Structures are given as structure tokens and as C-alpha cells.
């Protein structure tokens, strides 16, 4: 017998960073049902939406309205349940389980890991809503008189609520469940795998296909509509900074082409080559922008506000996170909190999958800290820097931000930057950040769709990567020209409701899986109607001798020290 037996742990052999795919370039590796059905549904939806834009708008708008009105409480409840569950995972007895088994080592350094998490998770919205959202709440607050210091506090508090622990808890749950079932239990890296403890082998059947197709379609529409809508915002911003650039469909199509090209390049180069690099660039540029604003803006105010905002968030946490405007009898929440919850949940398969893919080798405790706490803190700093500066200008400075926000959300960022020195530099930085955020959302979205439609292969062939990245750009472009971006985004957010149910099932399933993994299930031998003979037991009078075990027989040849490590080393 050689030493090479099981040199990799059995679990890890399934998932260890895969080898580059072999074979000719046109080789496909697809799950036929998921791949072709998803592609067909996506194209069908896009065509129908373009042709019947008005009807689609109406229909999806009404569905979304009904979902938020009647299921708002369910979203609010679900978000809290999941947050509590994720925190309990961090503190509880499963914290030491390592994704990929104890021998697994992280693929990425903590810093690049974090950069990728952040770039995929929040992305573009943070840039625009960082300025706009506190201003919206400041001028129209459901819980305070508009324009007062109290309104400012409440405004930051709501913004923190919407961008804070809850969304990251959703991502953490989905990411953890996917990573655990793929890396520790050797199932394919796709949403269906998570339900193995509940559905058993049926996950490979039609139910599993439906789950994966839903995830694929929701991801595609989420990413593509964000791309389409975001490009309009980028165009508006560009026009504001450089009036020579017109706001036309041509410019926007050019932007989509450019972003798609970059994203395609990045996906084809893979996680290590493209996506990691762009995420790092993205985070570095975003940090530069934030520190620029922090230094050039009201630095002291921002620092004060950062601490105070966290305090307010903690203080009101239970109140705001369970607030359902029951006794206020208003409809404010549907447009904000419930909308956000639906949005995060609809995005969770995508972000969660991506987080899972990059988190191999982390322990559950590390994972939750890294996905829940650190991004939340950084988001808070970002929101305080941009939202706080906006509030400062409106309350103590030149004013005008509130008006800009209400007229045009994307421009408000640039209006804010104009209030500080070096506006040209910071505006350029801001545009760069916008574009890199786009590319990183787009490439990670394509990678996720690639993995799901390849039946869980974490390194799908290049031609498939190109297909999905390009399709994403095409969908965005088609919707931009033909109309229907808003309609499809609304539709994507409405899928938050079925996904919220799936998420709760996911928590149950994950818990069962973790429990079975560590303890929980037991061996049981049922003798039943065994009628065999019974024997007398007896003490051993003379201990048996077995001779010298072969373990201690030296192998022929000189002993080398230190022995070359074959097989027993790092998994």
C-alpha cells in the first residue's frame, strides 16, 4: 500500500479549488434543464416585457404593491428571525466547524476576501443611496418632525437599519448554507443542495431544478436591471460633471458595452485573476473616495456622528427592526423598509452564492464575523460619511442637497461633492467607483449564474462564462432600449416573497445539517427478532499477545529526516 491513500480528505476532494477545465474550448458543462430553461425564461420575459411594457409595468407594480401591503409583516419577521439565527451560529456550538473540513485552508487572504464580499454585497446602491436616503428621511420622516435634529437622528437610524445587520445576515445565511453543503457535505454548489436534509435525493429531481431556475432567473434580472438602471444614473452623473456628454441611449449603451466587456474579461479570467483583482481595485478606490470626503468635508461632524449613529442604532434596534407602523396606520414602510427587505432577499441567492464560493476554509465563527459584523461597520462608516455630510450641509451649511435628492438621486452625490474642495477630483473618483462597483456586481453575478447552470461546477468552462456575461449585457441593453427595466426590477423584488419562505426553510435545513454533521444523529442497531445463540462471557485470563506490530518496523532504506511530506500535508 502506498502513502497516497486519501491524501485529500474525502470532502475536500470534491471542492478543493478545481483544476482548469480540460478539453477543447467549445466543451460545455451544463445542467441541461437548468441551463436551457433559465435561458429560455429570461429571453421570453425580456421579449414579452418589451412588447407589452405598459401591461407588464401595471401587472408587476400591482403584484409588488400587494406583496408589500399584505406580506410586509412577514418580511420584517423573517429578517429578524434570520438575524437572530445567524448571530446564534456565531456564538453557538457550531462556531468551530470549518467550511471544507478542519484541514481546509482559506483560498484568499482575509483582506481580499473581505473586498470581494463587500463589492458583491452592496455595490452600487450604497453610492447613490448613501447620500440620498438620509436626506429623504430627513425631509419626510415617519417618526419625527421633518427638518429637526431629531429627524436627522431618525433618518440616519433608518438608513442604518436598511443597510446594516439585517441584509448581511441574509447573505450570511445563504452563503453559509451553500458553503456548508458544498464544501463539508460534498454536494454541488447550487441552491438546491441546501435542502438535502429536508428533501434528500429529491433535490436532484424537478423540485431542485425549479429552485435553481428561480435563483438563476432572479439573479439575472436583479443584476441586469440594476445594470440598466444604474447606467442611466451614471450617465446623469457624467452629464452633470461633464456637460459635453449628453444623456442619451447611445451613451448608455456604450457604457453597458464597456462594463459588460470588462466584466466578461474578469469572469473569463476567473476568481483569482479577474474578480479578485477588480474587487480589490474597487475597494481601494471606494476607500479613497470615502477618506477624501471625510477629510475635505466636515471631519469632526462625521466622527461625532459615526459614534452617535451607532449608539442610536443599538439603542433603537429592537424598536425599529420590529416596527410595522401598526398603530400609525401609514403606508410609509412599504416604500422603504419592506422594499429593501424584498430587495435584499431577492439578491440573496446571488450574493450568498458568491460569498460561499470565496469562503472556503473559514470557520463558521470567522465567517459570520466577516460577513455580518465587519461589512456592517464599514457600511455604517460610509453612510455616515456621505449621508452625514449631506445632512450637515443641509442643516448647517449651504443647503440644497435635499432639493437635489428629490430631483435626481444620482446627481445628488455630485452635488454633495461640489460643496467640498477639489470637486473635479472627487467627482472623477466617484465615477470610477460607480463603474468598478458595476463591474464587480456584474462579474460576480455572471459567475454565480455560471456555477448554478453548470450543475454546481465551481469552475465552469470559459465559453459558458462568456455566454452569461454577454447575455447579461444584452438583457440590460434590450430593456434599456425597449423599456421595461423598472417593470422587471419590480418583478425581481416580488420574488422576494417566495424566497423569504425558502430562506426560512434554508435556516431549518442548515440547522439540521449542522446538527447531523457534528452530533445529533446516532448509530442504532436493531437486533429485532434476532434469535441467535447467546454465549457466556468470561474474563480474559491471559492477555493475548500479537507480536510486534508492523508500524514499528523500519522500512528498507535510510530514514530521511525531515521526512518528505507526501499526502499528509495541507489539504
Amino acid at each position: 500500500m502506498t502513502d497516497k491513500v486519501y491524501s485529500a480528505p474525502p470532502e475536500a476532494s470534491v471542492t478543493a479549488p478545481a483544476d482548469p477545465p480540460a478539453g477543447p474550448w467549445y466543451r460545455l458543462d451544463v445542467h441541461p434543464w437548468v441551463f436551457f430553461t433559465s435561458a429560455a425564461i429570461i429571453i421570453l420575459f425580456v421579449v414579452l416585457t418589451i412588447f407589452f411594457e405598459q401591461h407588464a409595468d401595471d401587472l408587476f407594480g400591482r403584484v409588488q404593491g400587494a406583496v408589500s401591503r399584505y406580506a410586509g409583516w412577514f418580511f420584517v419577521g423573517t429578517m429578524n428571525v434570520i438575524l437572530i439565527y445567524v448571530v446564534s451560529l456565531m456564538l453557538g456550538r457550531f462556531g468551530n466547524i470549518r467550511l471544507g473540513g478542519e484541514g481546509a485552508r482559506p483560498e484568499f487572504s482575509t483582506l481580499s476576501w473581505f473586498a470581494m464580499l463587500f463589492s458583491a454585497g452592496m455595490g452600487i446602491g450604497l453610492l447613490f443611496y448613501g447620500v440620498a436616503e438620509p436626506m429623504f428621511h430627513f425631509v419626510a420622516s415617519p417618526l419625527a418632525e421633518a427638518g429637526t435634529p431629531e429627524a436627522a437622528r431618525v433618518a440616519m437610524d433608518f438608513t442604518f437599519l436598511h443597510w446594516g445587520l439585517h441584509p448581511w445576515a441574509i447573505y450570511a445565511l445563504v452563503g453559509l448554507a451553500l458553503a456548508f453543503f458544498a464544501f463539508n457535505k460534498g454536494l454541488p454548489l447550487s441552491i438546491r443542495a441546501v435542502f438535502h436534509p429536508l428533501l434528500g435525493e429529491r433535490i436532484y429531481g424537478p423540485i431542485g431544478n425549479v429552485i435553481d431556475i428561480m435563483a438563476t432567473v432572479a439573479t439575472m434580472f436583479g443584476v441586469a436591471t440594476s445594470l440598466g438602471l444604474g447606467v442611466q444614473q451614471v450617465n446623469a452623473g457624467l452629464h452633470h460633471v461633464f456637460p459635453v456628454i449628453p444623456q442619451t441611449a447611445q451613451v448608455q449603451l456604450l457604457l453597458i458595452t464597456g462594463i459588460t466587456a470588462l466584466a466578461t474579461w474578469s469572469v473569463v479570467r476567473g476568481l483569482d485573476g479577474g474578480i479578485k483583482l477588480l474587487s480589490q481595485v474597487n475597494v481601494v478606490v471606494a476607500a479613497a473616495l470615502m477618506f477624501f470626503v471625510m477629510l475635505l468635508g466636515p471631519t469632526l461632524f462625521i466622527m461625532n456622528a459615526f459614534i452617535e449613529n451607532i449608539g442610536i442604532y443599538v439603542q433603537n434596534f429592537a424598536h425599529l427592526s420590529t416596527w410595522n407602523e401598526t398603530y400609525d396606520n401609514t403606508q410609509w414602510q412599504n416604500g422603504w423598509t419592506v422594499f429593501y427587505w424584498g430587495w435584499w432577499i431577492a439578491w440573496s441567492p446571488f450574493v450568498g452564492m458568491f460569498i460561499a464560493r470565496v469562503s472556503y476554509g473559514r470557520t463558521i465563527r470567522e465567517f459570520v464575523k466577516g460577513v455580518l459584523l465587519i461589512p456592517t461597520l464599514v457600511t455604517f462608516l460610509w453612510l455616515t460619511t456621505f449621508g452625514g455630510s449631506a445632512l450637515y450641509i443641509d442643516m448647517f451649511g449651504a443647503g440644497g442637497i435635499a432639493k437635489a435628492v428629490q430631483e435626481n438621486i444620482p446627481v445628488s452625490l455630485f452635488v454633495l461633492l461640489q460643496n467640498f474642495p477639489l470637486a473635479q477630483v472627487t467627482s472623477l473618483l466617484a465615477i470610477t467607483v460607480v463603474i468598478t462597483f458595476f463591474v464587480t456586481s456584474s462579474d460576480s453575478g455572471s459567475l454565480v449564474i455560471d456555477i448554478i447552470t453548470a450543475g454546481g461546477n465551481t469552475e465552469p468552462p470559459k465559453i459558458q462564462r462568456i455566454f452569461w456575461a454577454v447575455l447579461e449585457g444584452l438583457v440590460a441593453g434590450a430593456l434599456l432600449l425597449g423599456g421595461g427595466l423598472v417593470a422587471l426590477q419590480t418583478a425581481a423584488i416580488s420574488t422576494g416573497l417566495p424566497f423569504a419562505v425558502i430562506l426560512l426553510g434554508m435556516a431549518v435545513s442548515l440547522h439540521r445539517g449542522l446538527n447531523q454533521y457534528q452530533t445529533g444523529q446516532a448509530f442504532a442497531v436493531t437486533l429485532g427478532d434476532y434469535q441467535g445463540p447467546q454465549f457466556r462471557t468470561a474474563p480474559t485470563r491471559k492477555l493475548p499477545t500479537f507480536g510486534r506490530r508492523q508500524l514499528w518496523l523500519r522500512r528498507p532504506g535510510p530514514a530521511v529526516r525531515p521526512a518528505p511530506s507526501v499526502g499528509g500535508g495541507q489539504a
Partner: protein
Amino acid sequence: MLQGLSQKFRGGCMMLVREQEQDLSFLGTAFLVHPQGYLLTAAHLAHRSEGLHVVPTHPNDEFTPMTIDRAAALAVAVVASDTAHDSALLRIEQPLDIAVPDDFLGSADQVRTGASILSLGYAFGHEQLHEVIAVGGHVAAKIRSPNDTRLILFDNMVQDGDIGGPLIHAGDGHIVGLVSGRFDPTEVVRGATDWDRRPPHDTNISFAVAIDYGLELMARAGLLAGTGGAG
């Protein structure tokens, strides 16, 4: 945590005995690894296959008589044996209704020095204590023996009856080793010509061979496809 592990695994531990003229002579411990009645044990215990039987444990955690006078024993056959790495695969010859957890097989690569472990075995089976003894400890070292076998040293003082039992990694809840005996440093140097000092004999360090050798036997018997994610 060790409590949960003990609950999980004690039902899988069996006494390995040899039947001789209606008497059972105790040999050591074996543990279930497959719902079709396969067990792993130390190869040196099962070097002769005639009369080999196993006696299942009772799975509950009540106070039970320490000795049983008569025991129902199930005949086992040696399916495969790897004497170089002291691992053997046995099969219960009659069909039984056996449930195993979804996940319980690990790899010695997945345990690190200092990790909490649990060893289970019929420590005092030779003395007729017919009860699984659970002992918690830590991984003391991971070494290669002179014949290049991967060994896990741990700081439980295993007894003769523990041999063949599972070594369980507390963090993952997976079996990572197969208990092979008390670690005796003189074994290592015996035969060296320049050795004449007798070292102290009774170390509190024991050793287990990596479970991977047992898994290799299972893989060759075609058993690793259907046991959850372990294959």
C-alpha cells in the same frame, strides 16, 4: 460537546470477541462504519478470523449492570485487512437493521494538534466491564511511524480493551483515527544497537492510526459511494 459525540457514536461501538466452545473471549473494540453492517477495527486484533463475533452495545445512557453474563453475539467475517497500517474491515454476516449518521467519517488531515478528541472503547472488556468508556483528551502530535504510517498521538490513557475503537474529532464530530494502542517509546528504539537505558514504560500518551487507511479499505470494497457526503 463531548456529550453529544458520545450519544452519536456509542451505539456504533461493539465488542470484538472470539467464540471458543460457547465462551466469548474478549479481544477489543470495533465500530460500525456502514449501514450494511461493516465495521472497522485494529488489524492485529483480527489476525485470525475463525470464531470472530461482535456484541452490540445498548444505546441508551442509563445505569446498567457493569457485567453481562450472557451476550448475543453476531458472527463477523474479515473483509479486508491492512496489517502494515493496523486497520481491518469486518462485516456482520447476517442482515440487520442499522442506522448510521449522515456524516461521521473524517480524515486525519482534518485534525490538528491540540484539538479536543473523544475516544470510545470497551476499556476494561478483558476484566468484564461490558460498557463503552468515553474518554476526552487532546491531540498530542501527528507523527509518522518507522513504516511511514500516519499516527495521531493523544493524551488519553487507553486500556487494552479500547484498541480498535474510534478516535473522534470533537470540533467536526467525525472519526479521524482508529485507536491502536498505548504509545510506547521503547517500540521506536527497540532494535537500535546503541540503546541500553529502559525508559519509563507507562506513558499517558496513546496512538491511533489515521482513519484514512480504513477508508481506503472501504473504498476498495466499494462502500464509499452511498454514505452521505463522505465519498
